[in-house]
């Protein structure tokens, strides 16, 4: 039974990927990409990667698609021009790369083999000890926030950099002109009513994912994205200027920086208390307590930064669109 779902999902992935190659309509391509992402997320659930599935669905099918559509709205090209002769060089490069990769898989342990090396060496300690050392059920969260917490700090820095980058390229840092955006969906009653009902539910769900991430799938990233999505929905339905009155870009800038700083400062606290950077054991009176506190704070930092950055990126895109509309008039 599992295998059947496997095959169906993989088939879907292949079909969408090939369709994207052949299609010229950019809008259709973006929608196909969204399907690809969602199919991947389902595939991840099938592969027992529940945290990854949640993140992929939120980020890939959610945020990435929104940004691509935003880009399309501004470039207004719905059709790609007819391509030149099929390039032999790219095909050749791709063929060689694919061949090397397939060659490489030939000596790999078979799919889902429990005796594979990667299940024997480092991971058993995580599975066996994380319950006592760290004390939370979600092993992925233990590794993400504690054992390999430094990677996650780097990742949060990446998110911050993305927010910084979009702000630099599209945003209006330091300039506080008022732009009003006539394009809201306020007149559409169904959207207005459902939007109003969904936004608080989404925020509640975001909080749930944030704080429940230790016990089940979830954590800072997913929570941040869902929270941002709630505000993006509000912004789409009720207008971007109203959304900015609730959370201003200035506040978002502060939140962006504070989240990643919080993460780094928790690490510094560990150093000041005699341990290494990001050592949580020293944060509490007993190690597992320290771990709980450390993970809680760190995930909070991640959630704040991710939510702020995603929303800030969306606002930057929306502002650019509004500026174009004004200048176009």
């Amino acid at each position: 039974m599992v295998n059947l779902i496997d095959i169906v999902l993989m088939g879907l992935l292949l079909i969408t990927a090939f369709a994207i190659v052949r299609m010229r309509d950019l809008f259709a391509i973006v929608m196909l990409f969204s399907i690809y992402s969602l199919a991947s997320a389902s595939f991840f659930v099938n592969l027992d990667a529940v945290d990854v599935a949640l993140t992929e669905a939120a980020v890939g099918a959610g945020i990435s698609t929104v940004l691509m559509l935003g880009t399309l709205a501004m470039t207004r090209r719905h059709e790609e021009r007819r391509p030149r002769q099929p390039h032999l060089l790219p095909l050749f490069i791709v063929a060689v790369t694919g061949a090397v990769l397939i060659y490489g898989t030939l000596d790999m342990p078979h799919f889902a083999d429990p005796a594979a090396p990667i299940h024997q060496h480092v991971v058993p300690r995580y599975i066996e000890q994380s319950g006592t050392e760290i004390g939370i059920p979600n092993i992925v969260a233990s590794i993400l926030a504690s054992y390999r917490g430094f990677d996650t700090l780097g990742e949060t820095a990446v998110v911050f950099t993305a927010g910084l980058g979009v702000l630099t390229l599209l945003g209006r840092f330091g300039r506080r002109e008022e732009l009003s955006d006539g394009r809201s969906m306020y007149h559409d009653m169904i959207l207005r009513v459902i939007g109003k009902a969904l936004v608080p539910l989404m925020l509640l769900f975001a909080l749930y994912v944030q704080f429940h991430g230790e016990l089940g799938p979830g954590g800072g990233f997913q929570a941040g994205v869902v929270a941002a999505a709630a505000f993006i929905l509000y912004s789409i339905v009720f207008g971007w200027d109203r959304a900015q009155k609730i959370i201003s870009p200035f506040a978002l800038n502060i939140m962006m920086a504070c989240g990643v700083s919080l993460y780094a400062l928790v690490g510094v606290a560990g150093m000041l208390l005699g341990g290494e950077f990001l050592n949580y054991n020293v944060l509490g009176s007993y190690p597992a307590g320290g771990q709980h506190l450390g993970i809680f704070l760190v995930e909070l930092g991640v959630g704040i930064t991710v939510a702020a950055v995603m929303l800030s990126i969306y606002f930057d895109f929306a502002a650019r669109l509004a500026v174009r509309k004004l200048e176009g008039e």
Partner: protein
Amino acid sequence: MISANLPALQVIIPLLAAPLAFLLRKPRLVWPFALLTTVLTLLVSIGLLQQVLDQGVISYAMGGWSPPWGIEYRVDSANAFVALIVSAMGAIVMFYAGTSIRHELPEHKQTLFHVAYLLCLAGLLGIVVTGDAFNVFVFLEVSSLSTYIMVSLGANRRALTATFQYLIMGTLGATFILIGVGLMYVMTGTLNMVDLAQRLPEVAETRTIYSAFAFVTVGVCLKLALFPLHGWLPNAYAYAPSVATAFVASTATKVAIYVLLRFVLTIFGVTFSFNTMPLGQILMVLAILAILIPSTVAIYQTNIKRLFAYSSVGQVGYIILGISFGTVLGVSAGLLHIFNHALMKGGIFLALGCLYYRTGSVQLDAFRGLGKTMPWTMAAIVVGGLGLVGVPLTAGFISKWYLVMAALEQGYWPLAVVVLAGSLLAAVYLWKLVEMAYFQQPDNATEVREAPLALLLPTWLVIASTIYFGINTDLTIGVATLAAETLIEGVR
């Protein structure tokens, strides 16, 4: 407490400083803060190198979890050396940036630039100091993304397309590295570099590891702009703001070369990489092409920043040539040139920034009569250029000398000719500039004065050091050789 945590501080100081600088908002506050950060980072690098020379390899367990369950920071003479180069250039260029950025960027972008700069510095140092293969990927992305931001702030609209191309190629490279690490992980079960080095020999003869090797090396070669994967570099260097070019040209490709060394020598091991896989031969061929072809293309450029960008691709060829021998002498020649080229190219791009500050152009025409109007700036370019050619008394001569020695040690006489040919080509494009600057009359229409002291001082600090290290070579040769030995010896 500070000395025990130096490895972590090396990366944390710029990493934490970036969001804090962002919160400060005003450029007038942000620049001094950023400068302070880069100076502190430099001090940590010096301290770290000192510690390594005294105590040997330093191992630091992030989060208190010992490797391979936690992420390890592992500092030996090789990466302490590279970290020093990165942070030194980071600090000097930041000092220069105070004036340069205020001139080149609108006010509301200046803060954003400085924050991106700090993130880039943190990212590069994170790559250098870490002992975990996946951690390399994360910080590689931090440094890459922040570099894209900096480059995109160039005034010309071509900065945008240059950044886009850089982004696409850079992300492909990083993804290749990720694939390679994944293949290594699936066969060994670990991500820690030392652990990988110990577990790889059992599985080294598998097709998966051959594949992994291929993907990692191709990905890294894309990042270090080895011919023919250098397409992103000329435009990115040419159209970025002066400060960005100077910083990135002296650090980014060097760090990528370090990553190559780390993977090829420490993780895969010199026997596997050079005997089992034909790495030496392939690198040698590409390096020769890199020395000859881009240097020739450089001669035809009228945009002088682009000229020196192509020159950089050629100089990377020298470094890779040294590495392709797989010997201590060869690798130390490569490491030496990493140090020396960072200084020479950094200095030249700083000087070009001085020129841009006064004339608003980096085209060949702007050099007309520059010997008279901006004597110090031009002299800096000449001295740096002489270093690129490899004239005795410059640092460039030392590394080329070592390179030729390494080639002769292996019996590769023709390669000495190639190195000489490269020097000749460099002399040709240098002569182009010298001829325009000293043998032509300046344009009397525009009043051009010498660049301000705030820009000249850091430029000459860097250029003077290329002379200093051309004469007093104990430190550089000593550390480079030690580093090469450590790398080749590996960690069995």
